[in-house]
């Protein structure tokens, strides 16, 4: 019996220390300067425990039921402490205030625990035995917690679940106390019911813990996040709003399912439909399989090679039911060969020729992406293009990034292509542009595959007309050793983004 009593001292001591460590660690993660954070948190916490101990003198009656109430409060407050702190960090500016308020509140409650428990146990033990045992188990609990925290809890469970777990321990001690001290309780059944409710709440918290970090992502994206994955290459996020699915790579919108057909029809058909005998096609980037879906509308094509850096991207778009539905299962077609490789070095090593090449890279917003838009890259691309072949390059927006768009056009021209620029309105992107590069003369197609939602033989020629506000501007070509494009792009988009 005595051992059972002291075991609860051990447990509540461990809980108390865990909450303190969680607060200190989170503060170091989020505010930096771990020495300062740990010192001030430990100081405030110990001081608050002192306040709690002092306050215990004002509790004169119904010690056991007060003790149970305090345990439940510590359980709830401590159990949800890291959840509260994470959410306040994401959504409010009052993280620091809430941190210390929480530390002091928990500290006061924990400070009340041991004095109350000692007074409850006073009649059962001799004073010297009581003090010795309570403090021994108290300190042992601290040791247990301090070892468990860095070795198991932080690496294996994470902050949110660790806190909830120890909240459950507090609630468990409360529930247990209703049995241990039932002779001191006027209505033990009611107390047990309250304990059960708290355990349920915390249990729910344990289940929901995994969603906390997703919620932080969700706050960034306006719509529901239905899939998110961080790969060594990028962060892939898929959102859903009613029937609109949107794919983001590193927070940049790649497509919206409501209008992506406009983008992908215009990427593929003006070029591919113009070369009736096309047999071999290459897609660089485009790991969503949507461009491939359009290419599969040409029965004459014998093979489509898709080179995308990220195996996770092509794997998800080959297997995830929602994503497969979007690309019509294009990656399952036997004509399609997926290569997960870095496009530029892959082209340097490879020697094959293609009739049609679609270049669908992310916009050139940094110098490593910018290399994929240089004269050196386009020269290499030209080496892979059959005599009557067509290459098409997604070329950002001629409206929002006019210099960037015409810079890509100019760069392809410098690399020796005959260039043919065109554009289309994609509601979720705005006005969007492409450049077709050929080795000889070229005309837009007079025939298109059936079943297209946007392109017609009439409007396909109109795409090549640029109104005055999108008309060419003088630009420098983009070279590996002088990346003008990244500078244009950075400046132009900065002017628009709020």
């Amino acid at each position, binding site marked *: 019996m005595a051992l059972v009593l002291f075991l609860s001292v051990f447990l509540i001591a461990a809980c108390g220390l865990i909450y303190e460590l969680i607060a200190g660690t989170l503060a170091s993660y989020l505010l930096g300067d771990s020495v300062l954070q740990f010192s001030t948190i430990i100081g405030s916490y110990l001081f608050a425990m002192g306040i709690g101990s002092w306050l215990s003198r004002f509790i004169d009656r119904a010690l056991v039921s007060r003790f149970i109430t305090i345990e439940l409060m510590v359980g709830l407050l401590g159990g949800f402490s890291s959840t509260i702190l994470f959410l306040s960090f994401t959504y409010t500016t009052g993280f620091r205030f809430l941190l210390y308020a929480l530390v002091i509140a928990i500290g006061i409650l924990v400070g009340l625990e041991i004095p109350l428990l000692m007074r409850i146990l006073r009649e059962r033990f001799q004073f010297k035995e009581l003090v010795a045992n309570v403090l021994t188990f108290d300190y042992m609990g601290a040791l247990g917690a301090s070892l468990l925290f860095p070795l198991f809890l932080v690496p294996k469970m994470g902050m949110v679940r660790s806190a909830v777990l120890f909240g459950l321990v507090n609630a468990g001690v409360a529930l247990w106390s209703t049995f241990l001290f039932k002779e001191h309780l006027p209505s033990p059944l009611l107390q047990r019911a309250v304990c059960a409710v708290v355990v349920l709440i915390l249990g729910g918290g344990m289940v929901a813990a995994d969603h906390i970090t997703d919620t932080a992502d969700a706050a960034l994206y306006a719509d529901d996040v239905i899939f998110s994955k961080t790969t060594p290459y990028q962060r892939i996020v898929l959102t859903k709003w009613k029937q609109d699915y949107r794919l983001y790579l590193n927070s940049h919108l790649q497509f919206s399912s409501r209008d992506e057909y406009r983008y992908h029809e215009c990427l593929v058909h003006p070029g591919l439909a113009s070369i009736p005998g096309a047999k071999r096609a290459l897609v660089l980037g485009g790991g969503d399989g949507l461009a491939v879906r359009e290419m599969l509308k040409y029965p004459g094509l014998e093979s489509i090679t898709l080179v995308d850096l990220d195996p996770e991207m092509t794997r998800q778009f080959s297997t995830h039911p929602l994503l497969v539905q979007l690309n019509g299962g294009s990656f399952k077609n036997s004509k399609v060969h997926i290569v997960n490789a870095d*496009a530029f070095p892959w082209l340097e090593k490879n020697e094959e020729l293609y009739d049609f090449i679609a270049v669908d890279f992310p916009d050139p917003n940094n*110098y490593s992406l910018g290399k994929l838009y240089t004269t050196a890259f386009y020269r290499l691309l030209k080496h892979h293009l059959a005599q009557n072949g067509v290459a098409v390059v997604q070329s950002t927006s001629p409206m929002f990034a006019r210099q960037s768009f015409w810079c890509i056009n100019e760069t392809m021209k410098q690399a020796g292509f005959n260039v043919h620029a065109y554009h289309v309105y994609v509601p979720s992107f705005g006005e969007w542009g492409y450049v077709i590069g050929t080795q000889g003369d070229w005309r837009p197609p007079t025939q298109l595959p059936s079943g297209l939602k946007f392109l017609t033989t009439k409007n396909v020629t109109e795409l090549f007309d640029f109104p005055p506000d999108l008309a060419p501007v003088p630009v420098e070509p983009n070279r*590996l050793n002088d990346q003008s494009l990244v500078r244009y792009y950075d400046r132009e988009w900065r002017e628009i983004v709020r």
Partner: protein
Amino acid sequence: MKPTRREFGASALVGLAPKTDRKTEGGFVFESQERGHLLRDHARLAAPRERVKVPVVIVGGGVAGLSAAWRLDKRGFHNFVLLEMEQQAGGNARSGQNEISAYPWAAHYLPVPDKNETLVRELCEELGLLQDGVWSERWLCHSPQERLFLHGRWQDSIEPAIGLTADDARQFKHFEERIAEFHASGAFRIPMEEGMAKSTDRERQLDRVTMGEWMRREGLYSPYLKWFIDYSTRDDYGTHAEQISAWAGLHYFAARAPEDKGPLTWPEGNGWIVKKLLAKLGKYVRTGSMVYRIQPAGRRWEILTEKTLYEADFVIYAAPTFLAPWLMEPAPPRWPIDSAPWLTANLTLDRWPANKGLEYAWDNVIYSSPALGYVIATHQSVAMHQPETVWTFYWALADGNAADQRRILLGGDWNWWKEKIFADLERAHPDIRQCVKRMDIFRIGHAMPRPLPGTIFHPERQRRAKLSGSLVYANCDLSGLSLFEEAQYRGVKAAEHVLRLVG
């Protein structure tokens, strides 16, 4: 270092290892000081076991020696050998390679040569770097080229731009104007001998004072400009502006026309050029051949290594000139040019340090660091995804006396230097220790000539640089300037001299 039993016990039992940082592997590379010092100390070296007759011997397989070989071979003369002390030819243009990238051990770029640098352009055309007047974009340094960590953040370009006062800016402008005048005078050229012909008393005067003294006379005291010039002289000559000849300091800035976007660079630095040259010339090269004596024998020369005695009609001496008095009999006068100690390190990173602000550039310099910053070997890669990288860290030990600095260079063990290098990089990259899995350090006691005042117009330099007789010098230190172009020029000119005499 092997842990003692006690340290091992303590760390194993209670985890009291001195620090929790990750372990960085590594060591020193190419340690040849002891072999080199055998020459200085006239140690007894084994007598050659065989005798080989060959019309021409080139001593030294750095860029000068290889360029001499390049010229001989190209002119259809194949009867020669090149003797290299190390196991790997290339000298200061040697390079290494690991699972991530090739990387340089010292010289890492070639400025785009202007029209009058005909020899360098000839080589570039041969290597496919220059085609129909267009430079190969693949090997011009990719954007972004350089950045400087100044006042706690990265700025574009190594020339300081943040925090300059109007007066600082005025002094930069004044300096640029003076440089443009010197350039226009034609007295500062690459190869430097071509400018020497146009030298007047004014240039002689410039070789009598230090760069620091010249700056004071010009009223240039801006701390930013002083740093910029001092950085440049340390970077190119391993010498502080306060010590270097003003002529040499100005040559660095005034010899080249403002170039278009360059320089030419490769993952392995100038090792790329060396590899291409060796592919063609490797058959002439005898590595591991330390020449310890060169002596006349009648009208011919005897060149002694521990394995072979070569009997030659002509010797092209392309090894460091300061070594000649220890090898040659009779000993030539002492060489008047001091040499600078350097340290380079190749850091293998399995992740990139956190980077705020400007993206990583090819050349990354930290303001007010005693070292010279680092160059990213993977910068010329065209791969989008580069989780790992190799950085080459440069440090010219330029403080005070070169001999003292050499004692420090050789005195510090690998761990000591590793800590110094980390401490320096931590100025800009606090998490650098967590990223580096390997650090290999190259200690170069005599890395390059140190053009102190008086060396450029020294009569002994000019006498030794003259091509006459059957033994000619060819190392770039004859120019007083450690530049690829100078080494190539000296090597080619020596070869052409020999070709004229050999008939």
